[in-house]
């Protein structure tokens, strides 16, 4: 059992005891390591100023192969156990700027400079990905997509887009050549195979290599918080609304990284990130993949887990309505063994789920909709990208025949209209009986109780819910 978290920082082996492991990476870099290039602005993963690159080589899955941008302000040092990190401070090579840095200088991509390190790292992450795919050029869509998680208040982004487009990929070498040696690979493999318990009087972080150990720990310490990617939990910590004192990390359990299709059923393990999920969905459920494009930022998608987005049970989470509409099933392990919960029975009340004490989610699975299915996901927010929804809606319909006048099967689910992600069983039943949109809209509205808050008024939520619902039928019924 290790008593320290182990990772590589700019190519150097680094160990962290409880005092360091309990800090957010950005804070650790800035206050304990003097690496102040990484900035903290929002401390909630919404601005990207703290972006660093992370390689997690021993996680089974495609994303383990590259240095990926992540938000260091909402990532605990403990979570980086087994990772290799590169920060902006180390990016230039013997006084020579990295190509992304050169591009930002030459294209006037920085003004005040506070967001700049984050932009440089996000761009470098894009370069790493493109090098791994042997791409030759950067297009404007890719440039914008890779920078969706970075806010700049000075430039209006135009010079930064110019910079991204001016990057000459032939002048870039993968960071692995500089920051990831064979010796490091071997050392991290060893780290990945060994459980860790990093603790002192005020902080405890346990990272077992098996589910059994994890369950035993949960049983022993009921106050344990499960640390998925921490994208929610870290924010609560940073805003000083809670203290993270006892955490269970599942990152060393290989089986939780599985994502696969099995006779029409997609299985997504608890450690699968949104980035990887999206990659998988592109071929299996492309509609869902494009929905994930306007969901979160690349940095969040690279850390955040699919199961985490369900487990946190936010009524405005973006994936729960999609999973509700797909009739997903949640796989749970607990003291009494395994069980499966249909997602429509999972969300009980505001932020309250059907998980019993001592239980944890190990996977979510769902059937791939049959070919003739009309499947659409909608998200409505004040700002199109990286904004929390006012309302989101998922609709899945199969018709009795080509005429599209009678519905054989339907699922409708929405977020932002009730205390929980909501499945419209009554509306669905009505539509199965008779395809009458006007009657269905009335039923739809009678099922929900949206609230007014800082994002949207109740009335607005109702109007968009109805509009998006109508839009679905307008789009699929010619």
């Amino acid at each position: 059992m290790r008593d320290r978290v182990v990772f590589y920082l700019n190519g150097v082996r680094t160990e962290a005891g409880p005092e360091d492991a309990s800090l957010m990476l950005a804070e650790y870099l800035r206050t304990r390591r003097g690496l102040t290039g990484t900035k903290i602005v929002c401390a909630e993963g919404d601005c990207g100023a703290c972006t660093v690159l992370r390689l997690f080589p021993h996680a089974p899955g495609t994303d383990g192969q590259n240095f990926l941008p992540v938000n260091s302000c909402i990532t605990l040092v403990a979570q980086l156990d087994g990772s290799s990190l590169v920060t902006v401070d180390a990016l230039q090579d013997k006084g020579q700027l990295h190509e992304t840095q050169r591009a930002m200088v030459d294209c006037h991509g920085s003004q005040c400079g506070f967001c700049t390190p984050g932009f440089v790292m996000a761009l470098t992450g894009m370069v790493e990905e493109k090098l791994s795919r042997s791409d030759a050029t950067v297009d404007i869509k890719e440039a914008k997509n890779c920078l969706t998680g970075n806010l700049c208040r000075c430039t209006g982004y135009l010079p930064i887009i110019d910079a991204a487009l001016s990057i000459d990929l032939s002048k870039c070498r993968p960071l692995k050549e500089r920051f990831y040696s064979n010796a490091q690979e071997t050392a991290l493999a060893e780290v990945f195979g060994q459980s860790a318990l990093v603790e002192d009087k005020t902080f405890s972080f346990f990272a077992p290599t098996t589910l059994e150990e994890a369950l035993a720990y949960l049983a022993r310490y009921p106050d344990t918080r499960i640390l998925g990617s921490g994208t929610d939990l870290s924010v609560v910590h940073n805003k000083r609304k809670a203290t993270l004192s006892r955490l269970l990390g599942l990152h060393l359990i290989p089986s939780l990284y599985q994502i696969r299709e099995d006779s029409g059923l997609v299985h997504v393990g608890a450690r699968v990130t949104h980035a990887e999920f999206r990659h998988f969905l592109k071929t299996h459920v492309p509609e869902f993949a494009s929905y994930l494009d306007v969901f979160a930022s690349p940095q969040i998608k690279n850390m955040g887990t699919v199961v985490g987005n369900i487990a946190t049970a936010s009524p405005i989470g973006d994936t729960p309505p999609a999973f509700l509409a797909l009739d997903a099933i949640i796989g749970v392990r607990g003291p009494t063994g395994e069980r499966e919960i249909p997602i429509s029975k999972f969300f009980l009340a505001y932020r309250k789920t059907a998980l019993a004490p001592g239980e944890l989610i190990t996977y979510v699975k769902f059937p791939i909709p049959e070919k003739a299915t009309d499947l659409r996901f909608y998200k409505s927010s004040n700002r199109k990208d990286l904004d929390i929804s006012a309302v989101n809606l998922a609709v899945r319909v199969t018709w009795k025949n080509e005429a599209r006048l009678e519905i054989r099967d339907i699922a409708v689910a929405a977020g932002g209209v009730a205390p929980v992600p909501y499945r419209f069983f009554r509306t669905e039943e009505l539509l199965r009986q008779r395809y009458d949109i006007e009657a269905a809209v009335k039923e739809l509205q009678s099922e929900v109780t949206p609230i007014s808050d800082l994002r949207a008024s109740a009335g607005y939520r109702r109007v968009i819910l109805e509009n998006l619902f109508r839009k679905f039928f307008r789009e699929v019924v010619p």
Partner: protein
Amino acid sequence: MSLPHDSARGHVTGESEFIDDRPVMRHELFADVFYSTRAHARIKHLDFEEVLKTPGVIAVFTGHDFSHNLWGAIFKDQPILATDEVNHAGEGIALIVAESREIAQRAKRKVVIEYTDLEGILSIDAAKRAKSFIIPARKIERGNVETALAASPLRLNSTIKIQGHDHFYLESQASVAYPLEDGQIEVHSSSQHPTETQHVVAHALGLQDKDVVCIVKRMGGGFGGKESQAAPFAAMAALAALKLRRPVRLCLTKDDDMIMTGKRNPFENEYAVGFDSDGRIHALDVRLFSDAGAYADLSTSIMERAMLHTDNAYFIPHMRVVGQVCRTHNHSHTAFRGFGGPKGVATVEKVIEEIAHFLNKDPMDVRRLNLYAEEGGKDITHYGQKVENNTLGRLLSELEASCNYRQRRSEVQAWNSGNESTIRGISLTPVKFGISFTTRFLNQGNAFVIIHTDGTLQISTGATEMGQGVNARIAELVTSELGLPRQTARVMPTRTDKNANTSPTAASSGTDLNGAAALLAVRKIKKRLSELALKLIDIPPEKWASKTAGLGSEPEVDLEDPYLNENDPNAGADWVSGTATYFGICFEGGEAFHPSHPKKRITFGSLVLEAYLNRISLSDYAFYKIPGIEFNKLTGQGNAFLYFTQGAACTEVALDRDTGEVKVLRTDILMDLGRPVNEALDLGQISGAYIQGLGWCTTENLVYDQQGLLLTHAPSTYKIPNIQDTPRTFNINLLKNDENYANVRGTKAVGEPPLLLAVSAWTAINDALRHLPHYRKSYPMVRIPATAENILRAIAPQRFESWE
């Protein structure tokens, strides 16, 4: 090709140092501010017992600990920390100082406070009812508005509502104070106004100005939010440092910064306009009401600029603007890029749009008809200043043609008559922005230039660098005067012990004031070097001081005229001529020479060394004041500005009929910036300001609770534009104009004016909406910001009624 920002390399490598990047000193402490959650209340009970018991907490300070607790940029009416009564939610009450930031932040939650709530005024309406105003209403008037209105063939009355706008500088308010010997304080602050910060710190702590130095290396964005507001936080850090004799750092979290600090003032304006069937405005009667928040701050000056910009680009023969600044119990609002300008301009642009809608005309034609023009004396503003160097007509014509405005307008109309899921709108608006502080005494700057004996320079001015590139521009101005590359000079951190009595870096004036002063300073040295160079031509090099100085065998070179005559045209009166020449000496390519002896060139390095060895001063200081500013605040008449920066933008938007979401399809901008010192830096100001203005007009929504406590206090809820919100097509061009004789090197200020161009996005949204059948007889009343919800309400008002 333009040189990059002078800190670009440090920015991309992360080496550029901001306040919180400064190494933590031994014994340094961290402070955090406990603030009110009530709008207006008496503090009944305040208890720090649990806070002080927390391990690691060193001290708690309140307003009573200051020698003078009141500060204010114009009126000293604002407590640094509220004592008996709070006047807005987010108002600081106590400073908690601890061994770590986290300890201070967590301890803050243990403060016990009880309030006796008092009646709060949380809106402009409520302030009007309670007659709660900062100062009596002010008026700027020309002609006879009543008569002209009555005589106008057509009349409209309307209103416009404009919400606040958070600066969202990435670096929140930050300062660190170091106690020095003999009761002195050195404070490093993220401040646009080091002089005021110095003065506020000294006054608050009962020190004298000589005891306090304020240093500003750079800011992670300012935008006006650190013009006045940096000072009280610096004073808090300095108080703790002085009392505890330890360095104290106070860097706000983004959440606390947004909750505590003031924003762009909300405005609610009313107007009556008289016009004819061609769309010509005969008379405009406008009443501007702003929400100052709890304290005066800069709100009266902001109102003044709003009043001076309610004409924007239009000649309005009979015009009256009344401005009333309301005192409420919201956070104390402050400067924000554009100051009052955007609120005045948005108002008159709405007037134009409404007239065009009423007459069923293209708003562009109405704009044209009313544009300031030389002919017919239509170039005098309502405050009596002549609009000189007027390029508005050219800007509009050239932009209209280059962006294909007319054709795209008919395409938009065709699109909207189809059955698409979006409706589109297009709008082209001009801007004429007055450059100068409207308060005369602020239009002064000073600079200090040092040349070292290796031929490199250090420049110090009162300008502060917040990303806008003022330092790069100043360095380029100064080095080009000496024929040197920019990298031979470094602009040093702004310090009040080098440049005192400076004005804030604000009002777009940073380069105008400080660049001019720096140029004057270097010209003083240049004159001496020129005379020396001339004399050296006649002295054989082996007799130069560098070969003989130690021996004293050769006579020293004496200058006959070492001082620059203030009336010398080369001193700066003739800015546009570019560089000044003295004694016929040219400075080019790192060398000095006289054209009559082109072979006898002296490298700049040897020249300055010779100067040193001949005891000729290589440093100088200069002072610059903007000439010809005579605006009388009492009468509201006079030359308020040295010149105008002008531009125009055309924006096309698509609104989602189902959700109200807005997408900017295309933006074209054309600006007249005279002859830029550094074109790339200017273009960066334009794109940045436009997108910031776009946020103000669309997604940036400040939502408060019943007590005026800000709920959208982080980027998760307060949505500034993201890279995906930039226009799909975004063209920015500069109009060629070599005729701005008023300003240093023929440049024009750029910082604020392009923000106002984003008003075209808001008018484009309204343009899209007015195509809807229910706006046939009325004009949409979408406030600023036009959020998705506001837009959907305007698209389908009846749908909302059924639920509300």
